[in-house]
């Protein structure tokens, strides 16, 4: 066991983690360190493609109010409007800041940052699509991740790479509230445990898409810190709202950016029809993702899918100038050629919705402070969260394309600033939590597990059943069945066996621990979804097909009682200038 002391610890080295680390380093009087399960440049921010939305107005007239409105409407009015306002205003300067850090954006003929259209982003409150997504070809996330990592090296940020966080140091403070004093992690290279004792901690570990079978998410996205928070009594907010991106490569789920449609790509059914004209007559293929994914499944269900089994949809860019494809969409063309052997300039690409993004997460205030209760003053002292792991709630019931990258830079920065301020104003408190014993137990129990159950089989069954019962369409029946399936899988999880007993790079043990995290994430999603008897944004209940504002215009806050048993409370939505209206595009 090794012990470290820092003023601020950031967990996760994707966009939000690096942004938080840069701002914590700038603002903290003491030391800052980042702990990451991967080398920072492997983080999944790097897989984001299409752009970061900001009302720069470089191509069309645009305003932050339109962006704010689109975000709220896109979120089916579950978005907290204070967060959306801060976001739409601040993301403009944040994009310029990234450019000043060196980010190589694609350019317009006049040399300014290029912008493209994206789903749900409109001018004048829904009249027509607007060019708002600032892009670097189709590798915008890669360039954000590289740029932030480069600047972290420039600023001398401390990194602990390939460390798996196992638990948080979380204690009650003198006045009955809660305080976070650090984390405990395993050095993957050696298997050794390290405690990171800190004045403040920022969680920025991203999503949990690996609970589904077909996903755009990296293998590493196993919801580690949402699970750890949930196990330690912190509620998770709006976990039923899970986004399926419409265009994942058939069967593989590899992301093809919405920017393809922003550049003029069209979705067609098996008959070649541009079916989105029927579902969203005004903005068609550029409707928000929840609507497009549902429409695609409706087409397939009604027998209008493409292919020999009529089980996919076609993404058609054959009418675009091949030069535009090579210049602005080179990576997605490469994915289509490499994995499906489809030449996108001459043949339409087979696609299906792919599990992509969790709108829910660890509840925070607009400064990233983590809540233990349902009110803004019920915060865990010293604990912050930002990015996909958090729920601020900017994205409400459905995130608009590009707003994830904007979220990282705007709220990652706010969390970093707030965590540094807290560290400057507070002393390092002694640890009384027996976190070390818990972490040692978890490691020795898993490393020496000798039961009959296979981690890979349990994981595959979880992924398949989540896909079948809790993905784009849900009912009381499928969700209730999934509650029971998860209980059974959790039971079997206590009987796993692994073969690798070694200390260093024990990736078999890591996968087993990650499966435990995923099962907890799945539980929060399914229980929350069962409890919300309405359809809103990405949560589509076939037995309750309408949005029900009188009963459900509120955030879910799920608490664990014991494995398989939860308690759900509610949190008010921050309303404001945009009144909830029917969501038509």
């Amino acid at each position: 066991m090794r012990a470290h002391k820092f003023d601020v610890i950031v967990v996760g080295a994707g966009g939000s983690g690096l942004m938080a680390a840069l701002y914590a380093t700038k603002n903290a009087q003491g030391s800052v360190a980042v702990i990451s399960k991967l080398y920072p440049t492997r983080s999944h921010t790097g897989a984001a493609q299409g752009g970061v939305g900001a009302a720069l107005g470089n191509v069309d007239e645009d305003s932050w109010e339109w962006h704010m409105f689109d975000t709220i409407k896109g979120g089916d009015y579950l978005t907290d409007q204070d967060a959306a306002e801060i976001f739409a205003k601040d993301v403009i300067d944040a994009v310029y800041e990234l450019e000043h850090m060196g980010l190589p954006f694609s350019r317009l003929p006049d040399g300014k940052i290029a912008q493209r259209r994206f789903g749900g982003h409109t001018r004048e409150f829904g009249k027509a699509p607007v060019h708002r997504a600032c892009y670097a070809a189709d590798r915008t996330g890669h360039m954000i991740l590289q740029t932030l990592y480069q600047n972290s090296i420039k600023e001398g940020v401390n990194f602990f790479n390939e460390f798996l966080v196992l638990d948080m140091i979380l204690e009650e403070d003198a006045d009955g509230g809660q305080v976070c004093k650090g984390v405990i992690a395993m050095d993957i290279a050696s298997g050794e445990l390290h405690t990171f004792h800190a004045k403040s901690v920022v969680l920025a570990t991203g999503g949990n898409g690996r609970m589904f079978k077909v996903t755009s998410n990296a293998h590493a996205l196993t919801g580690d810190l949402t699970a750890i928070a949930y196990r330690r009594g912190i509620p998770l907010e709006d976990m039923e709202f899970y986004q399926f991106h419409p265009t994942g490569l058939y069967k593989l789920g590899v992301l093809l950016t919405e920017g393809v449609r922003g550049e003029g790509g069209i979705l067609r059914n098996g008959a070649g029809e541009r079916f989105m004209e029927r579902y969203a007559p005004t903005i068609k293929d550029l409707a928000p993702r929840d609507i497009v994914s549902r429409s695609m499944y409706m087409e397939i269900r009604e027998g209008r899918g493409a292919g020999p089994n009529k089980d996919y949809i076609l993404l058609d860019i054959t009418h675009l100038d091949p030069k535009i494809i090579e210049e602005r969409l080179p990576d997605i063309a490469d994915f289509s050629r490499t994995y499906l052997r489809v030449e996108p300039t001459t043949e339409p690409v087979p696609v299906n919705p792919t599990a992509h993004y969790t709108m829910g997460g660890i509840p925070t205030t607009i400064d990233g402070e983590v809540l233990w209760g349902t009110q803004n003053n019920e915060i865990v002292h010293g604990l912050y969260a930002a990015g996909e792991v958090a729920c601020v709630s900017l994205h409400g019931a459905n995130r608009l394309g590009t707003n994830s990258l904007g979220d990282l830079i705007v709220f990652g920065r706010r969390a970093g600033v707030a965590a540094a301020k807290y560290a400057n104003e507070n002393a390092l408190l002694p640890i009384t939590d027996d976190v070390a014993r818990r972490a040692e137990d978890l490691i020795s129990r898993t490393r020496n597990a000798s039961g009959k159950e296979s981690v890979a089989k349990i994981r595959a069954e979880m992924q398949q059943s989540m896909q079948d019962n809790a993905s784009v369409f849900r009912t009381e029946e499928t969700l209730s069945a999934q509650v029971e399936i998860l209980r059974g899988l959790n039971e079997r999880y206590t009987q796993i066996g692994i073969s690798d007993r070694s200390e260093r790079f024990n990736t078999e043990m890591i996968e087993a621990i990650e499966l435990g995290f995923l099962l907890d994430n799945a539980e929060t999603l399914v229980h929350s979804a069962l409890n919300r008897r309405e359809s809103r944004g990405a949560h589509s209940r076939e037995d309750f097909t309408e949005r029900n504002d009188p009963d459900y215009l509120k955030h879910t806050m799920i608490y664990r009682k014991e494995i398989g048993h939860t308690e759900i409370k509610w949190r008010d939505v921050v309303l404001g200038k945009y009144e909830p209206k029917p969501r038509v595009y």
Partner: protein
Amino acid sequence: MQATFKIQRYNPEKDKKPYWAEYTLEVDAKDRILDILHKIKWEMDGSLSFRRSCAHGICGSDAMMINGKNRLACKVLMMDLGTTTVTVEAIRGLPVEKDLIVDMKPFFDSYEAVMPYFIGDAVPPATEYIQSHAEEKIIDASTKCILCACCTTSCPIFWVNGQYLGPAAIVQAHRFIFDSRDRAGAQRLEILNQTTGVWRCRTAYNCTEACPRDIPITEIIGQVKRALMYGTA
């Protein structure tokens, strides 16, 4: 179809030296090599260790030597190999930690040595720097780099001289030296002009052939050499 995978294994906790392990299993022509490694790990031998994350060629975790060539395991399909006998070993020139996992620290140390970060004007413009299409295009390829190390660990000079910064670090330096907005190109050129820099390159071309992002690395190294000789940066 059935395939035979010969994988170089080494766990320093129990093995005195590396050895080849053989696995025969059912595979599909469209399987990624990474899918097959997972199948081996999940169904045959849980102790097989390798890095991976995104599984579609963007994160750069799973560089390994597959049938003698450096590749990302997630970007090569079974059908690309034209054989059902596949050898997989760790990339060369970096210390092996366990099986297909190498110590990446020397690689990232070289990366950090070239000042891989933007240095702009003391007072940046109120909005964005202006950059033309032509200026943008010069660095387009080098900005694609995902730091997977396929290039550096395929370089024969790097194998025999670990002090050589290697192609990946030069690509990263190029990305800033030729960025019209950057102001520290001369300092980076000075770093690359040292005995550990570009002059070590003998244009073996291995790096260009190994790059999973199709970056014309040899050409990029040539541009840096010309910049040093003729001041063309």
